[in-house]
């Protein structure tokens, strides 16, 4: 009954989605307020139906309904409850439903929080989002139905892939998709503005908080994936340049560029068409990422040919969405004005320089990800493009970005006079040169960023005649400014963590009998043997490693090796003692002889700064979102519209 209910809800969502996609669009074109009015209730109804379908699938998982093919292939009655719920997005069909769910959440949010926008614009935005959801609904209903029944009903399910049975699975995909799909809002704003021909600084102001919100979610999503890989793969890597990772990283790079160019467009009205193009590109990359991950072309281009229906659908959908929006762009964008004037040496120019670098970095990742696929498809040979390529190409591209991050925020808008910029930068530059001389180029660039943020902060917070109190000064600091500083500090912390781990990580593979010790970077690791353990759906062994430092106990680590009962593949669960200056990381290898085990011991200095930096970036995004500018505007316009409503 429940699977059919879910299926029915999807069909209803499709029907309402079609209304949401077309009626307001036609209404906006013809100027008919009653047709435009449809957008909001239609968006709310679509949300209700998609949420119903989502809850139906979740309920099938929770109640172990193995008559549903998707549940039977991705769950098992012994699977713990949180993972049964997370199993909803453990496979292809459910991932699409999660994608759609997130799109409905964003659409609802736009519908509820856009009372200050002109009606024609809102209806167009909601219509574009409705059309996207129609595409995904058609895809699910024709090729990837999660509610398909299975007959005969198997006694038990095939279990969730053991790699996915982890707290990371509960949090990482929803956050990631929330970010991915969130760029659909900026995309819809862009398409709506192009359709209506009203592309101005106000457009940028309305788009900005939505873009920042999506970017914040995406940052957290990528970070969670990285942490997860770090502890589950057993050797402490945190980024692999895997095509699946690149698929989420490309929208992030484009989104980061978009955030910066939105700043130029909002403040100065300049480069509007470029900003709109970036909004289109960021969401197109989200779609492309979904295509890459979901069509199976990544494992092999031939997987595409064996199941052409799915791949073909996404390809056509991509062509329609990306091609259509770019065609619209080519038609409408040239009519957009120039914005305000600024000189070559100005914050505007530097932000645009940042844009060029981020877009080039994004295109390089795209090139490296697609190149082997294209080469293979053309029959020109099979190659692999992996971490060595991306490190050789990507890292040098980011170096000027970190440098610009140090200089840009201190340059004034409109025109930054060289002597003035030099005066404001003198302390930061001094610190940076010393750091570079003492420790090397990377440290020089990182400290330039940190020191220039501190300079900026000092200039804004030092006591003045009118406002001597520090607290008052802090209150006066605009939230968007504070957010930017936090995010930039996050970048510096991230870069610091990456450099430290890369340079000073120590690892050792030892063969340990109970009682054996090994010393690494001042920490003494004593192996106390292993014991058998039984989990809810796995058996395994758990090692016990005591760590002391200078004779004082430091940590007790319990690395595990598990074999999940259904799918029988062995899994490594590393044990980590995290700390602000280092992680101690121990994983169990294979048993060798007479109670001895291969034990991998790692000393990873400052590795947590990598994710701490990402968290700071996301926190910066959240702080910027809370800026009064966005809230005030809304309240002001709300009161003015209600006042106008009373008058008429």
């Amino acid at each position: 009954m429940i699977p059919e209910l879910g299926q029915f809800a999807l069909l209803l969502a499709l029907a309402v989605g079609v209304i949401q996609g077309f009626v307001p669009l036609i209404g906006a074109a013809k100027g008919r307020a009653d047709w435009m009015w449809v957008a909001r209730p239609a968006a709310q109804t679509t949300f209700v139906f998609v949420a119903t379908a989502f809850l139906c699938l979740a309920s099938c998982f929770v109640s172990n309904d193995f008559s549903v093919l998707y549940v039977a292939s991705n769950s098992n009655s012994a699977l713990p409850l949180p993972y049964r719920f997370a199993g909803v997005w453990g496979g292809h069909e459910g991932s699409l439903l999660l994608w759609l769910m997130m799109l409905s959440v964003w659409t609802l949010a736009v519908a509820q929080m856009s009372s200050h926008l002109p009606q024609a614009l809102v209806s167009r935005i909601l219509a574009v989002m409705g059309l996207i959801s129609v595409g995904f609904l058609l895809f699910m209903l024709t090729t990837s139905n999660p509610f398909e029944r299975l007959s005969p009903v198997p006694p038990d399910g095939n279990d969730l892939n053991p790699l996915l049975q982890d707290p990371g699975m509960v949090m990482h995909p929803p956050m990631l998709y929330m970010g991915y799909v969130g760029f659909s809002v900026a995309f819809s704003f862009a398409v709506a503005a192009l359709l209506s021909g009203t592309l101005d600084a106000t457009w940028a102001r309305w788009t900005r908080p939505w873009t920042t919100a999506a970017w914040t979610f995406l940052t957290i999503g990528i970070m969670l994936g990285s942490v997860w890989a770090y502890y589950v793969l057993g050797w402490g890597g945190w980024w692999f340049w895997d095509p699946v990772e690149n698929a989420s990283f490309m929208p992030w790079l484009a989104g980061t560029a978009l955030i910066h160019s939105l700043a130029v467009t909002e403040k100065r009205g300049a480069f509007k068409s470029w900003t709109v193009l970036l909004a289109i590109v960021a969401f197109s990359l989200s779609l492309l990422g979904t295509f890459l991950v979901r069509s199976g072309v990544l494992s092999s281009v031939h997987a595409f040919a064996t199941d052409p229906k799915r791949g073909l659908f996404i390809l056509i959908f991509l062509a329609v969405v990306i091609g259509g929006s770019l065609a619209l762009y080519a038609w409408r964008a040239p009519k957009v004005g120039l914005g305000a004037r600024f000189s070559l040496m100005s914050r505007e120019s530097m932000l645009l320089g940042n844009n060029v670098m981020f877009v080039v970095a994004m295109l390089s990742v795209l090139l490296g990800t697609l190149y082997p696929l294209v080469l293979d498809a053309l029959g020109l040979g099979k190659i692999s493009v992996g971490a060595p390529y991306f490190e050789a190409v990507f890292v040098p591209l980011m170096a000027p970005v970190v440098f610009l991050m140090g200089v840009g925020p201190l340059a004034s808008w409109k025109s930054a006079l060289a002597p003035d910029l030099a005066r404001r930068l003198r302390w930061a530059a001094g610190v940076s040169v010393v750091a570079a001389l003492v420790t090397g180029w990377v440290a020089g660039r990182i400290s330039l960023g940190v020191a220039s943020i501190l300079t900026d902060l000092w200039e804004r917070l030092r006591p003045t005649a009118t406002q001597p109190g520090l607290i008052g000064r802090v209150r006066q600091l605009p939230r968007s400014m504070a957010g930017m500083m936090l995010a930039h500090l996050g970048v510096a912390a991230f870069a610091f963590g990456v450099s430290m781990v890369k340079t000073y990580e120590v690892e050792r593979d030892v063969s340990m009998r109970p009682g054996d010790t090994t010393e690494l970077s001042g920490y003494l690791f004593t192996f106390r043997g292993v014991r058998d353990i039984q989990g809810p759906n796995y058996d395994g062994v758990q090692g016990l490693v005591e760590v002391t430092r200078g004779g004082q106990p430091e940590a007790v680590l319990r690395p595990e090796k598990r074999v999940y009962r259904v799918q029988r593949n062995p899994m490594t669960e590393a044990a980590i003692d995290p700390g602000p200056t280092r992680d101690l990381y121990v994983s169990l290898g294979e048993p060798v002889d007479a109670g001895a085990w291969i034990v991998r011991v790692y000393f990873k200095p400052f590795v947590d700064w990598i994710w701490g930096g990402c968290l700071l970036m996301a926190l910066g995004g959240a702080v910027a979102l809370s800026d009064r500018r966005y809230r005030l505007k809304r309240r002001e316009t709300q009161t003015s519209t209600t006042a106008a409503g009373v008058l008429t």
Partner: protein
Amino acid sequence: MKNIRFVLVVFCLMSQPMSLPAQARDAPLAAADPAIEARMLRIAGELRCLVCQNQTLADSHSGLAEDLREEVRAMLRRGESDEQVQRFMTDRYGDFVLYRPPVKATTWLLWFGPGVLMVGGLGALVTVLRRRARLPDADFEPDDEQALEASKPT
């Protein structure tokens, strides 16, 4: 980056050597020859495990990867160079096994594309900005003084 000396000094200060308890045995390294092992891992870190889903030969636990790692160890013990090991792998499995694709006609675009993009992108930016600078004031919109004022430190 290679020599963050200051930090190194701090680390050395933090980690005083300590005396081991008398009965404990210092665990032997898992590898018979640490130097060979390190070289093998460095080489295997840039090779693809052919039976895995995008994993390096160094990280993979598959049987084939174990065998190939042993093969590499044996070659290194015989005194063969890194290049010889790489050639052995590409002779057997083709360029597909290399995570760092070789530079040749079919990969020129891959290797030089990013550089060309960067030069082209920055060039385009400079051109656009200079062309803008030559335009008369009348083509531009007036400054939003309020927005400019708000971002200035007082």
